[in-house]
């Protein structure tokens, strides 16, 4: 492996790992804020218990999302310095704005929420979590704007004097058509994942004999989780469908690669492949099982539309990009992603996503009108839903990033041209090994903590101190409501 491969593996490992936690942070901040607001509105102790229970799981998860996010911001410069030089004028701004608008908001108000139970009036305390959620949305917005620009560069001009892409229209970058559909897709899948998290854990605790007296409360968690997961799941499907059509438009190769469609179907009615076996190098098809016309519909919204195949697109790309003598940031080449990865990740993303939404619908059915599911498989089966949702998210990113290859910025710079020229093989190896080992250890610790607290169930209800009713001196001496 050369430094390019090492740097790519590091980026892949750290990014997929980071994104295990991100959707849970985005969605759980919303759902915990909703629970706390329900408590304020209804005064039902169950809502407060659920708030604190899932709030705690949120914090365990948030910590890892945060620390792995720091690596993300640093490694563009560390491993991809030529990429950073080339895109910095455009790509840096959303990152800086994300830190200023989102990270400060999230970290400050999360700190207030954690330690503020006995310091802040109740409504203000709940608002803190809403603000954290707003921060996560702002964060998602700006980082996805940056990613969407890599998928479909807009609002820029290539400056041959400076040898870089330069921003000409910030608004165009913010309203990139890829961004406008990617943001709702990612946020909806974050909501689906987090709702599945609440659903799965509530169902598992619901099914345990030990927590029989808390069944009513866990049922609330089940119903809330399942409803949100189902609605969010539908939103994921709808936005994903629109995304597919835009992708066909701006990155036709990615759509063809998703389908392992080698030859253009010029008479229309391109088939959707359920199962394709290709040659190991992913360059041609050996056998496949297909449903007619479905791909045409997915890609173009019309069962009769023609969908371009990999081989034709490769030729087109080679014509367009392969013979440009002035091209500094790409070389003539194949311009085709690695098909087995795109093909299977696309299928796993969709299949697992539907499994979660379907599971949520099934749970809603099983618990309709006060019904209580008693089957032994109920708890263990439902708690697998968040894991499936997390995997679906990972496959989504693997698909969208691997499907853009060999490009780092589509049509402008290949990944190979973005790598840091000054970083030695040894340095790159050290960092990928250190980070991978560290992340593995942290994963074990994190899962251990989650399991421990899930097994323990929600703490019993205790009325939190209300600082608006603050008394005299003895109040000042009471222990903190929360302490590390």
């Amino acid at each position, binding site marked *: 492996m050369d430094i390019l491969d090492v740097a790519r593996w590091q980026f892949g490992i750290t990014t997929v790992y980071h994104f295990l936690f991100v959707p849970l942070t985005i969605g759980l901040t919303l759902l915990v804020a909703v629970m706390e607001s329900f408590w304020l509105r209804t005064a039902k102790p169950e809502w407060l218990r659920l708030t604190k229970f899932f709030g705690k799981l949120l914090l*365990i998860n948030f910590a890892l999302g945060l620390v792995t996010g720091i690596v993300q911001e640093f490694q563009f*410069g560390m491993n991809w310095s030529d990429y*950073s030089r080339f895109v910095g004028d455009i790509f840096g*701004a959303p990152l800086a704005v994300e830190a200023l608008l989102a990270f400060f908001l999230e970290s400050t108000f999360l700190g207030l929420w*954690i*330690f*503020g139970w006995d310091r802040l009036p109740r409504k203000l305390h709940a608002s803190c979590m809403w603000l954290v959620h707003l921060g996560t949305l702002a964060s998602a917005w700006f980082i996805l704007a940056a990613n969407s620009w890599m998928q479909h560069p807009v609002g820029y001009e290539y400056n041959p004097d400076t040898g870089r892409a330069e921003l000409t229209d910030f608004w165009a970058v913010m309203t990139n058509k890829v961004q406008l559909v990617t943001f709702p897709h990612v946020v909806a899948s974050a909501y689906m994942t987090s709702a599945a998290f609440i659903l799965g854990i509530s169902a598992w605790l619901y099914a345990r004999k030990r927590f029989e007296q808390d069944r009513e409360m866990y049922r609330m968690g089940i119903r809330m989780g399942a409803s949100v997961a189902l609605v969010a799941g539908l939103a994921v499907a709808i936005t994903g469908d629109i995304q597919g059509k835009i992708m066909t438009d701006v990155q036709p190769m990615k759509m063809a690669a998703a389908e392992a469609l080698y030859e253009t179907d010029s008479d229309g009615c391109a088939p959707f492949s359920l199962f394709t076996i290709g040659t190991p190098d992913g360059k041609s098809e050996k056998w496949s099982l297909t449903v007619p016309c479905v791909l045409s519909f997915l890609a173009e919204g019309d069962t009769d539309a023609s969908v371009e195949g990999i081989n034709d697109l490769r030729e087109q790309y080679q014509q367009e990009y392969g013979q440009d003598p002035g091209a500094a940031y790409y070389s003539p080449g194949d311009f085709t992603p690695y098909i087995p990865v795109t093909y299977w990740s696309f299928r796993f993303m969709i299949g697992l996503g539907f499994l979660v939404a379907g599971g949520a619908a099934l749970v809603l059915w099983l618990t309709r009108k006060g019904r209580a599911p008693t089957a032994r498989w109920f708890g263990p089966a439902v708690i697998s839903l968040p894991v499936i949702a997390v995997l679906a998210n990972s496959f989504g990113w693997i698909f969208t990033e691997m499907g853009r290859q060999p490009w780092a910025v589509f049509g402008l710079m290949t990944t190979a041209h973005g790598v840091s020229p000054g970083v030695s093989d040894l*340095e790159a190896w050290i960092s990928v090994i250190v980070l991978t080992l560290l992340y593995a250890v942290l994963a074990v610790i994190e899962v251990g903590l989650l399991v421990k607290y899930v097994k323990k169930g929600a703490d019993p209800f205790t009325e939190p101190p209300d600082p608006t009713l603050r008394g005299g001196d003895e109040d000042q001496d009471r222990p903190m409501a929360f*302490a*590390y």
Partner: protein
Amino acid sequence: MELTTVWFTLIAVLWIGYFTLEGFDFGVGMLLPVLARDDRERRMMINTIGPHWDGNEVWVLTAGGATFAAFPEWYATLFSGFYLPLLLILVALIVRNLAFEYRHQRPEPSWKARWDLAIIIGSFLPALLWGVAFANIVRGVPIDETKDFTGNLFTLLNPFGLLGGVVTLLLFLTHGAMFIALKTDGDIRHRARALSVQLGLGAALAAVVFLLWTQIDTGNVGSAIFFVLAALALVGGIVMARAGREGWGFIGTFAAIALAVAGLFVALFPDVMPSTTDSAFSLTTTNAAATHYTLKVMTVVAAIFTPIVLGYQAWTYWVFRKRISVHHIPEAELENAGR
């Protein structure tokens, strides 16, 4: 003023925010085995920075993002060039942050001891390495005509760089002791204050040598003024702490760090990363900068949101302004952990 100068100044402000704020929580972390006598006191120390460390750390993320956006060449050269020190800082920050969140999640002493170690080392490494990095930025490093760093880890470990690391280390230790003296009550408060004076004298000695060296090497009139003010602030802070005025003591170290960092940036200007290979290859505020348009957009965003951020971050310090003493730390932490 040129927008590139505005952004150079803003990045200096972000680093000042980072070092003055996370500086004391690094200090608190490193002093954990020195000041605390038992687990209760350790928890008390950690809880003084509990609501703040995360917000403090965002300053460095914003500094990194702002450098990427405003001076992409600087970001690219610096981050790829200082590869291994930055990796160490990343690992340190990762284990340290997790330690704050995870330490209290299990009651076993071995679990806590391990996370305590993570806090101590995770605070020590960045406190030292940021100083090494900054000293090297100001002094200059080998950079070739393609703007790439051509040295290695050992290039950075020169006497001047190491002295810079010792200075930030001692300053942050002093700053942390001042913070503990300011934020706690009981016996530890007095121990922290006494320690802040001792550490402060060491920090002052190292800082004066380092700042003089910097001044002679790369200084100008502006940096001299800042360095003198920084030294005065530090001495004033130590005198105040000795006199039992913890608030003024903390303000003293706060101002000393801010002024010293400001002075380093003044000494650096208009370079952002001088090249020791050939001054023609130096990165400057102009040849490393983003386009005027990008800087304009960023200026608008920063002008609107920086005051808001400062406002609500200051507010959290107000909300948690109370001193913490041992009896504020809940005993049955495991039961309380869910709150």
